[in-house]
Every structure is written in C-alpha cells, then in structure tokens.
C-alpha cells in the first residue's frame, strides 16, 4: 500500500471509529465476569476457585497473545493500525482478515497492496472484512440460545455422558485443527507432537505440584515451539 493511502488508514478519525468494537468486546467480558461471579455465589463455588479460573485464563492466554501481537504488528504495515486493532480484537484471525482484505481487492480486479490499490480498494477491503466477521456475529447472536436446546437433546440430561461429549467434541475439534499441521510436516509436525507430549508430562508433574498447574499449557506451548525451532 502506498504511503498516502496508509496515512489515511492510520489517521485519528479511523482510530476513533475503530474503538467502539474493541470497547464492546471489553464490556461483554466485564458483564459476563460479573454475572459469573454472582452465579458462582449462588452455586456455592468458593471465591478462591473463581479467582483461580480467571487467573488461569489470563495466564494461559499470554503465549498465544504474544504471537498475535507479533503478527498484528506485521499486519499493521499492510492494512493500517486502527483496522488491525479492531479486526484482531474480535472474530477472525489474522489469516482470515488478510484473506478478506485481499478478496475485496480481487472483487475490484486490483492487486492487494499493489500500485493501483487506492482508497476505494481500501474501502472495499474494509467492507469485506466487516461483512465476513458479521457472518459469525449475526449467526451466533441470533441462534446461539437455540444451540443450548440442541445440546440438551443430544445430552439427554446425563451428566456423565455430557462430560464425555464435551471431551469428544474437544478431541474432534483439535484433531481437525492439528491435522492440517500434521500433514504439513516439518517444524509444524514437531511443534504438534512435542507440544502434546510436553502437556501429557506436565499433567502428570502438576499432580505433585498443583501450584504450577495454571502455567502448564503455556509451558507446553513454549516447549513445542522451541523444539520446532531446534529440530526443524
């Protein structure tokens, strides 16, 4: 993208109009945290447990967020700071957003980021990212509560089966997500395998040292990551 276009994409006005979405994500998280806290009291869950759960989320997220941080800084030089900030605060990972931005340029028949990539093309890219993200937001916004009924039906009120069901769903989802990296091979495959083995080891180790339990996924991730760098 040429400097003049990037200047517009980074101007103060764009920061201001990008902020509401980021703030919305924060507001939602705060409301749900409060709601969860008041519900845990009614359920008789100790305060300590709630704090641990929240802290675990906070800590486990650090590693992946560093990755998002690094990717985002790269993305800012391509599509501008404020729009990267807004898009990466909500649904749509960096590759999805860049695909949408590129698709917008394709619809105009212009090369993404090329010399013809003018302000109209930027507008088309931004529109395409917004309309794509809205697909998830609108579907979940409108139909999510219906999915609870579906779960009740599939679960049939059997708590033991519901636990197996969510375990099976997790393995299915992560089986699918890992399969792409397994097929790719090389460093990706090493990261997957070493990450998995490290986690199994840590699950066992943390039985003896429960204090480091909340760091275990982050540690396993780092071990997988460095193994990939060393052995790929």
């Amino acid at each position, binding site marked *: 993208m040429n400097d003049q276009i990037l200047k517009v994409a980074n101007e103060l006005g764009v920061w201001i109009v990008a902020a509401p979405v980021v703030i919305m994500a924060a507001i939602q998280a705060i409301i749900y945290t409060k709601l969860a806290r008041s519900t845990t009291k009614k359920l008789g869950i100790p305060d300590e447990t709630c704090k641990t*759960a929240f802290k675990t989320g906070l800590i486990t997220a650090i590693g992946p967020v560093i990755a998002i941080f690094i990717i985002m800084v790269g993305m800012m030089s391509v599509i501008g700071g404020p729009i990267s900030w807004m898009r990466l605060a909500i649904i749509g990972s960096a590759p999805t957003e860049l695909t949408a931005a590129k698709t917008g340029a394709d619809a105009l028949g212009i090369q993404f980021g090329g010399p013809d990539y003018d302000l109209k093309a930027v507008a088309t890219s931004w529109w395409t990212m917004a309309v794509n993200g809205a697909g998830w937001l609108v579907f979940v916004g409108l139909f999510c509560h219906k999915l609870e009924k579906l779960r009740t039906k599939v679960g049939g009120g059997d708590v033991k089966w519901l636990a197996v069901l969510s375990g099976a769903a997790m393995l299915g989802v992560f089986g699918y997500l890992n399969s792409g990296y397994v097929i790719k091979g090389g460093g990706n495959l090493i990261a997957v395998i070493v990450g998995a083995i490290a986690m199994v080891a840590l699950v066992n180790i943390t039985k003896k040292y429960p204090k480091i339990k909340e760091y275990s996924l982050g540690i396993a991730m780092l071990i997988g990551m460095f193994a990939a760098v060393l052995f790929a």
Partner: protein
Amino acid sequence: MDNKEFNQVWFKPVTKVGMWTLLTAAILSFLPSIYLYLVHGAAPSFSTALKAWGMIATLYGAFYVVEPISYYSILGLSGTYLSFLSGNISNLRLPCAGMALEVTDTKPGTKEAEVISTLGITGSVITNLIGVTLAAFVGTMLIKLFPPALADAFRNYTVPAILGAVFGQFAFKYPKLAVIGIGIPVLLRYTTGMSAWMLIIAAVFGTIGIARILYNKENKSNNTTSEA
C-alpha cells in the same frame, strides 16, 4: 440449584447480553467503512460490494454455521457468545476454558463448568485486548526488543504447539477417542479433497458418535442387570 433456577439466574441474562453485544458489535464493525465514505467519499459500488460479499461468503459462509454448532458442547452458552465476539477460538478461548476447568477440578458438562469456563475465557479476553492494544499503540517500538529468531518462532510455531498441547491434555483423559479424533481428519485429508468445513463436521461428530457407542458399551457391561 435446580435447572429452572439456573435458567433464570444464568441462561436468561446470558442470552440477553450475548444477543445485544454480538449484534451491536456486528453493526459497529462497519463504522470504519462508513467513515471512509463520509470523510473521504471512498466506498465500493453497490455491485462491487455484493460481489465481494459473495466471494468471501463462498470461502467462509459455511463456517459461520458449522463452527458455532461444532464448538457449542465445549464452550457452552456464555462461552460461545464470548468466543464468537472475541475470536481466536482455537488458540485462546478453547484452551483457556479447558484449563480453567482442569485447574479448578471442575467436571465438564455441569452448571459449575459453564460458569467456571466463562471466567477462564473472560480472563483470556482481557489478556487478548491488552495485547492488541499494546500492539496498536507501541507495537512497532516493542517489536524491536524481540530478537528476530524469537519473533519468528512465535509467529510460526505457537499455533501448532498450543493446538498439540490441548490435544495432549484431552488425549490423556480419553486415549481411545484421541485416536479417532486425529485419525478421522488426517485420513480424510490424505484420501479426499474434502473442504475444511466438511472436515470439521466429520471430525467432531464422528468422534462424538464413536464416543456414544463406546459409552453405551461400557454402561451396558457395568449394568448387566438393568438397562441404562
């Protein structure tokens, strides 16, 4: 607390909040496009806008529906609203929800799990928002502190490493299902040119189906006298 009461204090307010936050965010996400039009007069023509929409929906449209349905039994109601607003589901929300349950020894599928995993996810949302906001305002400065090799390692390998780690965490609990969970998609990738959204359905619901069969078998052998 019985189901009726839980419905009143949890599901109802969660649904209300989820609906308005997601739909409002969907509308607000068009503000930058509106800004470009109002301030700079730049906007795609109506036909280009439709064309771009059609093109991107062809690529991702199936995921709008398949992902929420496939992830629902893990994330629960509030978890789904949170995850599909804040995104980064596989690398942040699911791992954090799972770890929150693991660390607090909460049984999945229960009322307690629904609420505790919510706290794990909101914790991750806060870290995420801090991260992207730092990147936005001081990112170009901070990135220089990272040795390039380290930055590359994070960029290239954090995602497969954390995906592998989460898989390991659950494989340890359900080793048989783990073989099915990874086996189905890997096999299908090698043998067919199946599109990604079909792979998700096959992997998730295939594994759930096998889990049900194994679960029924076990229950039968445990309760030989009475039918489960």
